[in-house]
């Protein structure tokens, strides 16, 4: 379970030419007030691709993420998702029940604060099992076995399966949230500042774990972060946002090492070097 940075591995890179996008976003806009929200965003996300959305607080990153992941109805635009179960879907044209079903099965959402993504008063095992039951798994022993496997995959001792998340450290809670999301083998994960609230030492471990899981499972990920080091480590491609607009987009290392837009240059040059 180890790896290095430089460039996140692309799974199935041989197939790059034949693939259809998993998610196509067309002219998506959602504004709360002028300049607050996100406007006119378009992009394609391909299977196995990790897209990082970076920018300062208030730049519209989270609004965009919420609009993409069916949690916030946009003012305009389309989000087309190619579902394994339902075929091609125009998300906000369909039934809400369909979106909810996607969220429980083909999608995962990792929140910045684990308490937003976990049920704090039920056991770790139940937190993982709940998602399995939501997709129809009924056998208790099978659910418990899968829960144990996933605890181990995120480096939590299996003996903690009956403990509640409230008895876990912040880093463990975050790893449990990831396990809960991955147990149903989602194809697309949305992450909002997944390392945001963690100590630097805990962050490194989580990043290494995430990076490996994403590569091994061939997940597509959209990750919002204001931490450019996190973006460099995890994302194949970056989208830089400012005041609700995408100002620059491209290969992660190209955007960070040779930024073109004044705002991206400012963002990159503001990092302290050590």
């Amino acid at each position, binding site marked *: 379970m180890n790896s290095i940075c430089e460039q996140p*591995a692309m799974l199935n890179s041989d197939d790059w030419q034949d693939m259809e996008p998993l998610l196509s976003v067309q002219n998506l806009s959602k504004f709360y007030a002028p300049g607050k929200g996100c406007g006119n965003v378009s992009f394609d996300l391909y299977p196995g691709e990790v897209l990082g959305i970076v920018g300062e607080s208030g730049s519209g990153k989270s609004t965009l993420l919420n609009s993409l992941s069916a949690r916030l109805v946009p003012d305009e635009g389309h989000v087309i998702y190619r579902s394994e179960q339902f075929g091609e879907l125009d998300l906000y044209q369909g039934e809400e029940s369909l979106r909810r079903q996607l969220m429980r099965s083909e999608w995962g959402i990792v929140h910045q604060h684990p308490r937003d993504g976990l049920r704090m008063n039920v056991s770790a095992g139940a937190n993982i099992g709940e998602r399995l039951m939501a997709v129809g798994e009924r056998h208790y022993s099978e659910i418990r076995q899968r829960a144990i496997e996933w605890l181990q995959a995120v480096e939590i001792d299996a003996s903690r399966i009956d403990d509640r998340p409230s008895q876990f450290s912040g880093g463990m809670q975050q790893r449990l949230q990831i396990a809960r999301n991955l147990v149903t083998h989602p194809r697309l994960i949305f992450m909002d500042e997944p390392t945001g609230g963690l100590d630097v030492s805990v962050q490194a471990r989580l990043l290494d774990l995430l990076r490996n899981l994403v590569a091994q499972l061939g997940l597509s990920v959209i990750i919002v972060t204001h931490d450019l080091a996190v973006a460099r480590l995890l994302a194949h491609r970056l989208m830089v946002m400012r005041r609700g607009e995408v100002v620059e987009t491209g290969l992660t290392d190209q955007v960070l090492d*040779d930024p073109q837009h004044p705002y991206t240059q400012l963002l990159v040059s503001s990092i302290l070097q050590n």
Partner: protein
Amino acid sequence: MTTMIDVRGVEKSFTLHNQGGASFSVLERAQLQVASAECVVLHGQSGAGKSTLLKALYANYAVDGGSIELRDGKQMVDITTALPRRILALRERTVGYVSQFLRVIPRVPTLEVVMQPLLDLGVERAVCQAKAEDLLSRLNVPQRLWSLSPSTFSGGEQQRVNIARGFIVDYPILLLDEPTASLDASNRKVVVQLINEAKARGAAIVGIFHDEDVREAVADRLVDIRAL
């Protein structure tokens, strides 16, 4: 001879928007063709644009004009217009880049750092490990360090770990950005051997080397960067 790298009319300037919009041109109508089994050494003063060209060949820098084609099997791919995931796929198996600097995630052991690019290609773990151990031994990285993260190593040790990582995959195209800077004579010799072995198996190599002995030992051609 097969053309592996074909650079035509490349323009590159930098504009520093946050420093009064200062703009300077670094590459003007740059041309460069490199064949397989050939090692081209870029030459020129500091600031002449050697590193800029090398980084553009890896699509790490964006160019303002011209084309940069790299051979991927039977195809030539223009990396100035290719999609990001096309470039990432090229970097996985076709073009390698070795700089002086190692970037690591804390807590990842040296052996894993070196093996990773080959593992990512789906090569069997035992094969990757054997090759990584061989490279680390040849580059005189003591075996007792292999299980440790290189984040605490000396600069020279990190550099040699990085070289081992850069040579773990037999890339058809290799870009070398001063990989021998600050290495001692015996380790420089190892790097020269690695480069010549890569050349012998048909790799096209573009490098920047400040040590004259290295340059003479590997270069088939010196290319003056101002004359590009």
